[in-house]
């Protein structure tokens, strides 16, 4: 693994949601009603026992509180920072029905999990070695969650990662005002400290080793390769001008290296999803004077979270709705603007609506390319609509092959990857031990 550069651009960001101190956590935790069969737990894909961990804050059993969180979700630290809690746990808090602000579950979880990291608490013991080996492709949240559970159950895990850093998009994609790369890497260290998990960096599975080689050398394989790189607009003239970037590629650059935006006056972000909204936030934070989101549909239909877009508007974002680019225009080899056209509600271009939008930076946030189609070369594995097809347990249909996370769900959130990775680990464990009910893990 490479070392993180100290002068990464992302380090100039600070937390959008400020962490709680003990007093704030106590006040907030004591607001929790401690509901029976609470909707917040149903809303959490990893089903953390939220009222219990909060109750344990109020009784000052902080170690037990952390154990409650991590026993359900080993990525509890990053989830506390990156989960869209407004739409998950907190969004379902019964207090909102009374018009009372919901419990700030994310910040409470962050308080407890940060404390666990600071104090170096450990919660897990490995079961006796099973002498079974599992390969995991990709080191993102899905694989980490899966590997941790497998290691806990006594299996040996080898994670193959093509990049120099582990953590997948948790390291390279999350908006730096939510979480920065060093936190993601600390989480990887914390997770792998259970033992029995090796990460091999710079290894692109499919090339070397091949899928067949992997299958021959391991007792099971988990695919956690995500949704792949940015989609591009290669058919548009000028797509290769300097200043045209994939949004994820750009975000990765600012998180892991540094970007110089001092010459950028006008930036556009193409797309209406969360990556687009994140990119708008990031550009505005970094001082770009004009940032415009260009989306082919209307505001009501954007996939990016409304609460995040509202915040971007406060920072000064602009938007062009029902608009698509038709060409990138340059001065020399540098981008200077986009030719755009308005669309009607059926997304058809409206004749005569052409405009020129000045831009010296354009980020394409129009989605990822989808799960790697190479997996379909293996009999029994299907890749459909950009997803590897799996059953509820993460089984692909080919004996010994499982998958989870973004490569199976079209690209959701970290917490879904964590949940699916763990579910798949249970299925893999049953496959390896031939024991359908076995669940021999221990935790403190």
């Amino acid at each position, binding site marked *: 693994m490479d070392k993180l550069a100290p002068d990464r651009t992302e380090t100039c960001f600070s937390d959008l949601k400020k962490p709680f101190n*003990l*007093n704030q956590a*106590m006040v907030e935790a*004591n607001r929790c009603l*401690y509901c*029976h069969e609470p909707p917040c737990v149903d809303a959490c894909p990893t089903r953390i026992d939220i009222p*219990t961990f909060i*109750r*344990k804050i*109020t*009784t*000052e*059993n902080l*170690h*037990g509180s952390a*154990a409650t969180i991590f026993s359900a979700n080993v990525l509890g630290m990053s989830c506390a920072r990156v989960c869209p809690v407004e739409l998950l746990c907190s969004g379902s808090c019964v207090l909102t029905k009374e018009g009372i602000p919901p419990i700030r579950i994310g910040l409470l979880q962050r308080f407890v999990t940060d404390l666990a990291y600071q104090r170096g608490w450990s919660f897990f013991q490995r079961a006796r070695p099973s002498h079974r080996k599992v390969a995991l492709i990709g080191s993102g949240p899905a694989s980490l969650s899966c590997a941790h559970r497998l290691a806990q159950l006594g299996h040996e895990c080898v994670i193959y990662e093509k990049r120099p850093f582990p953590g997948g998009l948790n390291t390279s994609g999350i908006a730096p005002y939510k979480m920065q790369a060093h936190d993601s890497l600390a989480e990887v260290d914390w997770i792998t400290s259970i033992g029995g998990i090796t990460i091999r960096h710079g290894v692109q599975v499919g090339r070397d080793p091949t899928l067949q080689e992997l299958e021959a050398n391991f007792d099971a394989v988990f695919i956690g390769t995500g949704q792949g790189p940015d989609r591009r607009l290669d058919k548009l003239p000028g797509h290769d001008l300097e200043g045209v970037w994939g949004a994820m590629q750009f975000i990765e650059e600012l998180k892991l290296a540094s970007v110089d935006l001092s010459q950028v006056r006008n930036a556009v972000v193409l797309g209406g999803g969360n990556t687009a909204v994140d990119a708008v936030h990031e550009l505005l934070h970094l001082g770009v004077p004009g940032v415009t989101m260009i989306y082919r549909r209307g505001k009501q239909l954007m996939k990016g979270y409304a609460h995040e877009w509202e915040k971007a508007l406060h920072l000064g974002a602009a938007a062009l709705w029902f608009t698509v680019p038709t060409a990138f225009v340059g001065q020399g080899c540098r981008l200077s603007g986009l030719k755009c056209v308005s669309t009607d509600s059926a997304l058809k271009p409206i004749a005569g609506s052409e405009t020129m939008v000045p831009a010296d930076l354009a980020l394409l946030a129009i989605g990822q390319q989808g799960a790697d189609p190479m997996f379909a070369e293996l009999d029994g594995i299907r890749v459909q609509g950009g997803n590897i097809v799996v059953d509820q347990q993460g089984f692909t249909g080919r004996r010994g092959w499982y998958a989870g996370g973004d490569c199976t769900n079209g690209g959701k959130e970290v917490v879904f990857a964590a949940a699916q990775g763990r579910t798949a680990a249970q299925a893999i464990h049953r496959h390896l031990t031939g024991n359908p009910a076995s669940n021999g893990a221990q935790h403190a």
Partner: protein
Amino acid sequence: MPDLTANCAGIVSPNPFWLASGPPTNSGDQVMRAFDLGWGGAVWKTLGDPIQNVSSRFGALNHNGVRIIGFNNNELITDRSFQTNLAEITQVKKLYPRNAVVVSLMLDTREEWRDAITRAIDAGADGLELNFGCPHGMCERGMGSAVGQEPSVNQEITSWATEISSVPVLVKLTPNVSDITPHGLASQAGGAHGVSLINTVKSVIGVDLERFTPIPAVGHTGTNGGYCGPAVRPIALHMVGTLAREPRFKLPISGIGGISTWKHALEFMLLGASTVQVCTAAMHYGFRIVEDMIDGMERYMRSHGFQTLDQLIGKAVGNFVEWGELDINFESVARIDPQRCIGCQLCYLACRDGSHDCIEPATDGSRVPTVEEGECVGCNLCSLVCPVPGCVTMHQVDNGFQPTSWNEHLMLEKPIRHKKGVH
């Protein structure tokens, strides 16, 4: 892994957490559900001649938006028949042989007591608890706290029970007395194997300002009830500690009153209780709270190096002394951490109006007050009202005087420090 096995007067349970006699232990279904969730024992809802209750029966003291800091009830003993209860006790013991089932009893004549005790033991009771504590309804009938308030009656009825019981007998004491000691000693003289305390405190929880009745109103009238829940914990701790440090008192104690967390349980146990009992908290939050009680207690024991409960029970008793034995030369002063202070000035106001007026408000607009340490009497008030943990802290100062108690000063004429804050 610490061992939580508890033993109170020979009644053994997998952990020290018992449900107190009350609504949560009214039936076998409830007790079994509680055992499934981890409760170590249960004291059955008091058996006796089945009664009829009034409606409604409970009231709560809420404070600043926090619900049920205190609770009050005028519920009597069980309204279910003896046979029904005993059959369920037998069934529970059969299915949960490791958990402690203690049968609480309240009867009138010696014959009734004898008969009830025999039947309860036959049904499988691991122990008996004599309810000498109920402060409403039953005492007017010459039972409950009417017994517990009169040491000679307490001793006599206790001896009726201990004469024939083949299982340990706990006497449940009432807090509605001025000094608990003679009552504990009376139970001991009557042959009890242990005591449990406290039962509820006589109280009126509130008055309805529109209907002019005590709360809870039963139609157009209200009555006194028994106070319990978090607010009574200090009273209970005092009574438990008082018996535990009494040299003549030798019996084990089951501590009750306002317990809802592992920390509360530890407080009772450090002051001498072998097991603890919970009623109101289980009524408020359900049986599930025991998970954190066990979890928190285990983690505490592990982090403090205790392997068994015996190693911690009573650890604070020796430090619980009379006022006259306190070190009167010990001196502390308050200090305010300007980094943490949020400028509410509650400490300034509290000291000015409620103590010795030795906190100065800021003159530089920072709103951070300062303590005049030469005047501070070390009363703690400012640190108690401060809303920020760790902001106002108390610090020991060396005044050059040797540690001396008031008693030593009187008897041995040891020198004591000068009074502070007296003008």
